[in-house]
């Protein structure tokens, strides 16, 4: 029964495919891919809709107000209304814009976001595109996002767009390094680039309660935090949303977009968030594994989406809590702290591995991280004393 529930979607697909018996191979492959793609799109578009409204509601709660609550029960149909609004809005293209580039940018950005979602295992046997170098694929595709952002900024031929794009690219490139390097320990420890292998390696439980997720090791925890922070930056979320900081540069590279194209950007941003969170779940939080052995009867995909939702909640929570940082602070933080710490995680994981992955390894690797952390924080401590606030007025 459990198994049945667990594999219900897999079976469904397997039941669909025999309908094409007799067709050429490439047709079957195409059909299989299409099924995956549609399932993926369906699920994540729904999730996007859900999250967009939930975010507003949660933010509302945090800011001591109601969120949207007019459309449908609890305002749940708000995205539908938004969608209709977006679709029927006028599509404006600036006269001096580079039309082709301007047009291609939202498509490309959405495509990459969706592509990245393809390699994440959502449940047991539920990886849409199980390729051997899945993690690499994820980052390869993710890195093209920058090009898309640039296209949007350039194509609009607008000062704010260009500045926003520059900011976005700068911070994305800077944080891509820690983001990728923090995955190295996991890849090294597992010995594979395949997300499925990584999830499989996190199966099993110590004492029946302690899952073998990498986040339970010191290096894993540190890497997870670094990864999460880098993910925040990569998806341009608060407190790292300088590229589209409304008070400074209107809406960054999206300034000149309206209507459906704007919605596409919006969606791509959320998809990027899903993708990063999904990868974080896969890499550090045990993928679709249940947190406790006793809870394994609940289907694997439920666990995955539960973890994903938890992370998304943290995203929203952070957005509701933290103010926006300054550009130079973000960059300093990336190069002076995140990157060294990411390398430390690498060393720490190596120490953990060579100390036998036991308690000793745990302690040693903790030691490595703590030492470097303390040293780094002392090193980059500017010892700035904050004076009492003074106001300067325009002359």
């Amino acid at each position, binding site marked *: 029964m459990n198994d049945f529930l667990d594999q219900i979607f897999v079976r469904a697909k397997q039941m669909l495919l025999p309908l094409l018996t007799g067709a050429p191979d490439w047709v079957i492959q195409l059909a299989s891919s299409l099924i995956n793609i549609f399932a993926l799109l369906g699920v994540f578009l729904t999730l996007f809709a859900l999250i967009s409204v939930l975010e507003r509601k949660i933010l509302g709660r945090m800011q001591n107000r109601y969120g949207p609550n007019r459309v449908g029960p609890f305002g749940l149909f708000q995205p539908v209304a938004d969608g209709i609004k977006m679709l029927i809005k006028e599509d404006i293209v600036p006269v001096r814009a580079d039309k082709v580039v301007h047009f291609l940018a939202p498509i490309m950005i959405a495509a990459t976001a969706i592509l990245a979602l393809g390699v994440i295992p959502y449940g047991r046997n539920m990886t849409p595109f199980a390729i051997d170098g899945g993690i690499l694929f994820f980052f390869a595709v993710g890195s093209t996002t920058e090009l898309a952002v640039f296209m949007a900024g350039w194509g609009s031929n607008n000062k704010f767009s260009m500045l926003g794009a520059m900011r976005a690219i700068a911070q994305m490139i800077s944080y891509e390094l820690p983001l990728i390097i923090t995955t190295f320990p996991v890849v090294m420890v597992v010995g594979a680039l395949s997300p499925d292998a990584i999830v499989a390696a996190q199966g099993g439980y110590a004492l029946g309660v302690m899952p073998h997720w990498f986040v339970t090791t010191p290096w894993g925890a540190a890497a997870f935090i670094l990864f999460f922070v880098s993910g925040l930056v990569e998806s341009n979320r608060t407190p790292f949303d300088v590229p589209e900081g409304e008070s400074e540069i209107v809406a960054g590279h999206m300034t000149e977009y309206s209507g459906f194209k704007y919605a596409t950007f919006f969606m791509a941003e959320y998809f990027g968030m899903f993708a990063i969170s999904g990868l974080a779940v896969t890499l550090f939080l045990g993928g679709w594994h249940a947190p406790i052995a006793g809870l394994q009867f609940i289907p694997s995909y439920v666990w995955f989406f539960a973890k994903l939702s938890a992370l998304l909640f943290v995203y929203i929570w952070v957005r509701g809590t933290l103010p926006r940082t300054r550009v130079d602070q973000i960059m300093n933080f990336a190069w002076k702290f995140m990157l060294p710490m990411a390398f430390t995680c690498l060393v720490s994981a190596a120490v953990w591995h060579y100390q036998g992955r036991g308690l000793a390894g745990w302690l040693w690797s903790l030691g490595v991280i703590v*030492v470097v952390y303390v*040293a780094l924080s*002392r*090193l980059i401590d500017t*010892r700035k004393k904050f004076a009492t606030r003074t106001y300067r007025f325009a002359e």
Partner: protein
Amino acid sequence: MAGMITALILIPLFGAFAVCVWPHTNARPIALIFNAITATLVFMLWRNFDATATGLQMVERHVWIPAIGAEYLVGIDGLSLLLVLLTSIIIPFAFLVQRMDRGFCALMLVTQSALYGTFTAQNFVLWFLFYEMSLIPAFLLIKIWGGENRDRAATKFFLYTFLGSVAMLLSFLGIYFAKGTFDFAQLAGLGKQGLLSGNVAWLAFAGIFLGLAVKVPLFPFHTWLPDAYETAPVGVSMVLTGVLSKMGVYGFVRLLLPLFPNEIKILAPWLLGLAVCSIVFASLAAWAQSDLKRMVAYLSINHLGYCMLGLFVITATTVRPAVEMQAALSGVFMQIFNHGITAAALFYYVGLLEQRRGLRGINDFGGLMQRTPLLCGWMSVAMFSSLGLPGLNGFIGEFLIFKGSFAIAASFTAVAVIGLLVTAIVFARAMQALFSGPLTESCSAFPDLGRTEKVVVVPVTLLMLAIGLAPQFVFNIINTTVIQMTRLLS
């Protein structure tokens, strides 16, 4: 237990790094914290050390540079442990002598790491690496923080010892090309049959001998020492005399004796003569000094001369009763340890005096006993220990050395005994000049021992007393090694 020695070598390096990273105001506390860590580690090492087992313990062996037979091979036997203990005792006290800035602390920690490495490495290449690694921070410490004439003294120190090191390295390359190994144990095994033959053997012997004799130093290769010790800051002098000079003696025990027993036997009268010259002339020269630091420096040469006497005696003649060899060797080991503590303590006291007066000439003081009885009292304990008063630590080693060497080379020993007398004269003179007589005007405002100073002085003095009265706990460390080494050499 694996990895403890490596950790021991690495922790001071981390410490040096930490000292550099932290704001400079905390340099000394941080250095001391790291020293506390190493001390704990050394204590664990001592606890886990099996005093009855022969051979190396806690060996760590890794491939390092296979092409030249250089392995990362560290391990300890009794001698190594003794010296590691000594290092762990001296260095923290050297830190407590004076306020130090960041670079100083970092360099001292690097020296410490090098010392641990030197005393635990069991492969020549590794050993040599650490051996040289200690030289550079020492040079910088003297050169940057030294007193008058520091440039000259530091350069002399560096060039002279470096010349010796180069000679030693060349010799070892020769040995390596002949025998194909750098491993101490293997080489020692080969040494009995004669490692090399003909002139090559003599050349190799001369190179290693020069390197070590300069380091110890042995008369007449000692002229860098008074200058360097006189100029170096007190803490550095403590480390130089307390531990660094032991590297030379250690080298003699580890390298020269096992590798070239035949050569030493042939040269024995000359070598013994040099040792005796070290003892007698150095103590006489100490008598003629008016600078306290220089005086203590010369006495260091004198005390290391006893070690050399004991060592050369071991392979001096054909007929050597095991009893006497063991006595001499035990004596040498004890002397290494005791001299380390005592000489460092003496430098420490001289440092205290210098801090108070700004000068350190023997005639710059007078009547201190009336003003600072505690300082004088504790200082005289160190002095008496140094001149070999029974009941304090210095006596044990000297007695055993003389016991062993008298039975084997009576005439040399009989002359060497003069050193004991002259040492006594030197200290009696110093005590008379410093402590007694009317209180000099310039000394009338001296403070007596402060709290931190007591923290240093009391444990060290208690250690001297403990070793002097019940030295068995030290002998427990070295006895097995002594027996083993005696078998190897007889």
